[in-house]
């Protein structure tokens, strides 16, 4: 999902030049409206043919029976076929036009319109999957409503151009070419017509910026995400990610408990028993006691190694010590593939974000060395605005499929708890590029005492 940077606020200024620009922009908006109208015609046609077919089937009478059935089938087939073939494309088209309108309203009318779309699911979508994604997104219907209403609202944007054209063609035109008959009213001499024409044209040009801004405001009132529906969606998403985060946390704690129980704790018990045995024979058989003590020592070394591995899995010390960039650098030093790291972090993300990002990169690097047969990997860590963005790109053979690998899904779930997202591009033949984005603010760099 791309991050949209807010467009610069440019308020239309008053004056002939600004007016002419505004007239042109109004024409472009009218063009968008006409494109939307084209999409509506497809919908209307699909509805019309479906209704016609159904009507003939149900209420049709007169004429030969088989001819009526044939007609009904043709009409139904055309209607439903049109809906099936063009349905998603029309919805996507109306979303595209609305997005463009939002963008242009910001750039041209100085009216910022926020947008919020449900991100497209990552897996290759089936027809029904795509339709479900579109239909579940309230933004789709908001945009369609806009496309329907736009032919009326667009009068605001088109009006200046209409006035200008009227002034030029109807009033000044007859003076330039004899083809155009002059408007019939008393006193329509050449002089008055030209003066009137110029006056009308000027009114159109001068009114254009205000009308364009009015159009932008109307667009904002219709295209701004509706608070309640958005909130409902947000609540659904938060409920889901919270459940998943709690599940992940509980699973992790169970794993740690099991590892401690089966590992270090068991070894300590064994060590205690070995030392006890050594104590029993120390007088009678010092040699055997010595062997037992050495055995206990080796067990303690193993217990420590297990604890170290466990700690690395929970929260690597180097991450706590040095932060994300150095922890990933340390990780890179343990990885066979050549890794190029670029980081512009000056400050540290909140600890949970740092940890999630670290383990995500760790998982991705493991994937690279397991599957991709990559010779080189590039890791890029940036923080711009309030977004931590990490790119991991390798020159391996690609073909990573997030719908098949549980690893990528797991990363996605963990990032979702922070409203983070993961995007992957991995065409067969490579390269594989994974981008992760997590919204967060950095704390200022720690001031060191040394």
């Amino acid at each position, binding site marked *: 999902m791309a991050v949209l940077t807010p467009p610069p606020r440019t308020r239309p200024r008053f004056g002939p030049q600004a007016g002419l620009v505004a007239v042109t922009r109004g024409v472009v908006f009218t063009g968008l409206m006409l494109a939307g109208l084209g999409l509506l015609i497809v919908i209307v046609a699909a509805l019309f043919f479906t209704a016609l077919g159904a009507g003939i089937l149900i209420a049709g009478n007169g004429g030969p029976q088989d001819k009526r059935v044939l007609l009904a089938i043709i009409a139904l087939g055309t209607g439903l076929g049109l809906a099936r073939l063009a349905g998603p494309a029309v919805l996507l088209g109306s979303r595209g036009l609305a997005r463009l309108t939002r963008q242009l309203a910001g750039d041209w009318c100085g009216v910022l319109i926020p947008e919020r779309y449900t991100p497209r699911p990552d897996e290759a979508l089936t027809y029904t999957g795509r339709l479900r994604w579109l239909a579940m997104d309230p933004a789709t219907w908001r945009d369609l409503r806009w496309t329907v209403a736009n032919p009326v609202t667009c009068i605001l944007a088109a009006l200046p151009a209409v006035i200008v054209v009227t002034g030029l063609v109807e009033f000044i035109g007859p003076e330039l070419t004899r083809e155009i008959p002059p408007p019939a009213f008393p006193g329509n001499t050449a002089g008055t017509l030209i003066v009137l024409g110029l006056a009308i044209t000027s009114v159109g040009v001068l009114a254009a910026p205000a009308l364009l801004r009015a159009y932008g405001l109307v667009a904002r009132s219709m295209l701004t995400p509706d608070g309640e529906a958005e909130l409902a969606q947000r609540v659904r998403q938060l409920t889901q990610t919270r459940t998943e985060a709690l599940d992940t946390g509980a699973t992790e704690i169970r794993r740690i408990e099991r590892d401690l129980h089966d590992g270090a704790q068991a070894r300590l018990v064994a060590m205690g028993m070995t030392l006890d045995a050594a104590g029993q024979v120390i007088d009678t058989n010092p040699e055997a006691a010595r062997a037992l003590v050495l055995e206990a020592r080796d067990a303690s070394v193993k217990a*420590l190694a297990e604890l*170290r591995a466990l*700690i690395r899995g929970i929260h690597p010390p*180097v991450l706590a010590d*040095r932060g994300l960039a150095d922890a990933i650098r340390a990780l890179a030093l*343990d990885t*066979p593939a050549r890794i190029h790291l670029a980081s512009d972090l000056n400050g540290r993300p909140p600890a949970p974000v740092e940890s999630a990002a670290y383990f995500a990169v760790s998982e991705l690097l493991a994937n690279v060395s397991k599957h991709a047969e990559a010779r080189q990997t590039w890791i890029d860590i940036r923080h711009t605005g309030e977004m931590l963005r990490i790119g991991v790109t390798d020159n391996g053979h690609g073909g990573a499929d997030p719908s098949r690998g549980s690893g990528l899904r797991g990363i996605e779930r963990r990032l979702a708890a922070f409203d983070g997202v993961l995007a992957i591009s991995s065409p067969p033949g490579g390269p594989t590029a994974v981008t992760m984005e997590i919204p967060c603010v950095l704390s200022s760099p720690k001031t060191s005492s*040394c």
Partner: protein
Amino acid sequence: MRVVIAEDLFLLRDGLTRMLQAHGLQITAAVDNGADLLAAVTADQPDVAIVDVRLPPTFTDEGIKAALAARREVPGLPVLVLSQYVEQLYARELLAGGSGGIGYLLKDRVFDSGQFVDAVRRVAAGGTAMDPEVIARLLDRNTGDGTLAALSPREREVLALMAEGRSNAAIAQRLVITERAVAKHTASIFLKLGLQPSDDDNRRVLAVLAYLGG
């Protein structure tokens, strides 16, 4: 031999002190933070400083910073850094000076006091003592792209011990082979890896580490 110890946990500081004293080393100061370490090394001019990575006030990598600061303060001061975990990143930072007299070991290594005191003496003499786990990870990392594929299993063992900073005599003792056999292996390793052979133990270690780390 005069030693300064910086370790914030009393039990470990006390244990280390006793153990080194039992092996005939003299502990001139045992401190629990980086600032006191700096004061002690400038005042006592010890033969070696043994420093824990995790020290107050931050309890992160304070020890590494303190060790590097101590080496700036007293140039050439041999420093042995102890840690509950090892990171190649830290090993590189410690080695970056390139002048030797550096040790980086897991705390577990003190369980074998004979080996540990050997390492302390080696570092004090300007040598290197890298933890076997650091070396094992370095070797693992280089196995992937086949640079070490030309070495025989025995040569790999010798390479690992050499990278830890051990002398030919120590390697021979460890692998239960003659010193001449070790010399043959090292010559063969240097030839296969295209490194300049060197009789100086320390330069040899740094060359091997640079090769593996590159």
